[in-house]
């Protein structure tokens, strides 16, 4: 039963990314990506990370992708931009990507076999305890990071007074 869910999510995810590659409209790409990230959230859930699954859907598929769509709206590209037409680049890139894929599979071959994922995952309670005990300090630091990003983004985009 679980394996069916896994394959369904994997197919949705891969398909969405493939669709994004071939679409010429940025808004379509972004919406396909929302689908892909949502599916990834489901996969996180299968891996026993319910909290991260929810975070993935809310933050990534929600907030970040909305940000993308905002920017796409502001930069109105009209007809959109067709994918690369030069065959050379695509062939080269695909060749390199396949080489890299082979290398990566080879590098991770030790973890390929193995029993199925079982047992309870990490509950939100456990995660919260970890965050506020062992990782309290980095956790507080992330707030500084986000604040810095906020200020930076505003400073970048703000129109200079003439």
């Amino acid at each position: 039963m679980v394996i069916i869910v896994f394959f369904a999510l994997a197919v949705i995810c891969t398909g969405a990314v493939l669709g994004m590659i071939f679409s010429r409209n940025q808004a379509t790409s972004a919406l396909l990506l929302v689908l892909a990230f949502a599916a990834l959230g489901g996969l996180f859930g299968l891996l026993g990370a319910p909290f991260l699954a929810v975070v993935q859907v809310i933050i990534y598929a929600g907030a970040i992708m909305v940000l993308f769509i905002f920017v796409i709206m502001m930069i109105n590209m009209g007809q959109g931009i067709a994918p690369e037409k030069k065959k050379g680049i695509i062939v080269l890139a695909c060749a390199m990507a396949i080489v890299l894929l082979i290398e990566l599979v080879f590098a991770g071959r030790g973890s390929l076999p193995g029993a199925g994922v079982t047992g309870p995952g990490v509950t939100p309670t456990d995660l919260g305890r970890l965050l506020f005990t062992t990782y309290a300090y980095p956790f507080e630091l992330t707030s500084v990071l986000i604040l810095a990003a906020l200020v930076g983004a505003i400073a970048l985009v703000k129109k200079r007074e003439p």
Partner: protein
Amino acid sequence: MTVPAGYFFVLSLVLFVLGIVAFFVKRDLISQFMAIEVMLNSANLAFLALARQAHFADAQVVVFFIITVAAAEAAIGLAIVLVIFRRRKSIRTADLNSLKG
């Protein structure tokens, strides 16, 4: 029937390579940025899968931080895209070639 962690790992690799291909196929900054996000998420998936196999709970905290950093990165990255668009009136990467000495 349960799913072996290796399946998740292979899926993450496939997604990663698709991200690379997307980066080269796309011709505008925003889409290339989205391709990078795909790669980042595939890395998260690999991380979670391998951690699950090794029964390492702290990995989830790390992934949590990665997502946070990614949010900050997206905000800054998109701001940069906007600034470039304002200055150059274009986000086609073919038009942008001043990044050289």
